[in-house]
């Protein structure tokens, strides 16, 4: 079929960012990031099953500064996708579609994801220390 270059709407470059749009895009972005992150979870589980040497290798990565950044990003992505996913479940039940409610629930999802991420890492560091 002939390819027709149609104009795209909305033009993301000139579109004023709104909380509804930002939370939606972030939901997809974190979903994709989590998809890649499943490799890390699978690697960790396989390493535990494989033996102490393999486990030492995966631990060396997860405790390195690079691994810690990846894990932190993974934690936030997970909590964001979870919190915003709950928003989606309410929408599926036909609730929370009013714009003020949508903005509030969007802010709530963002704040909750940050709080839960920090809480997880504070507890994890307290446990590990």
């Amino acid at each position, binding site marked *: 079929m002939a390819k027709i270059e149609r104009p795209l709407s909305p033009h993301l470059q000139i579109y004023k960012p709104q909380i509804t749009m930002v939370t939606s895009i972030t939901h997809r972005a974190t979903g994709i990031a*989590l998809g890649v992150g499943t490799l890390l979870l699978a690697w960790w589980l*396989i390493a535990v099953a494989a033996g*102490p040497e393999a486990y030492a290798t995966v631990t060396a990565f997860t405790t390195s500064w690079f691994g810690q950044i990846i894990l932190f990003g993974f934690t936030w992505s*997970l909590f964001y996708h979870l919190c915003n*996913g709950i928003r989606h479940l309410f929408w*599926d039940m036909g609730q929370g579609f009013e714009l003020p409610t949508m903005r509030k629930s969007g802010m709530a999802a963002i704040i909750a994801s940050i709080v839960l991420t920090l809480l997880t890492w504070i507890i*994890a*560091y307290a446990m590990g*220390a």
Partner: protein
Amino acid sequence: MGMRAPLKNVRGLGSAKEGTTHWWHQKVTAIALIPLFLIAIGCFISLVGADYTHVRYVLGQPFISIVMLLLIVAMFYHLKLGMQVVIEDYIHTESTKVFLLLLNSFFCAIVGLSAALAILKLALGG
């Protein structure tokens, strides 16, 4: 009276009548993943800084094994469905789209089953 042009019938494009099932499965796995992830995160936190023997012991416990196994199944199915939608939304070149859809299915099956096998090995003490 049918309003479809003959060409439309020949091409056979249109709804595959599977959209609702896809959506529903996405939602069922989403709901399942909420408690599963909360338990798993609690488990991971408790294992921070633990030595190998302890990690192996904890993952071999029946409750943790079943939570991990359910998590892996629900997670990779949820991932497969979600990535499929993303690919279908943004990739409009037919060959690239089909290639990526296959890659998505294979990735989820291979990585998911590998992780599941690891859990079963730990659970059954192999």
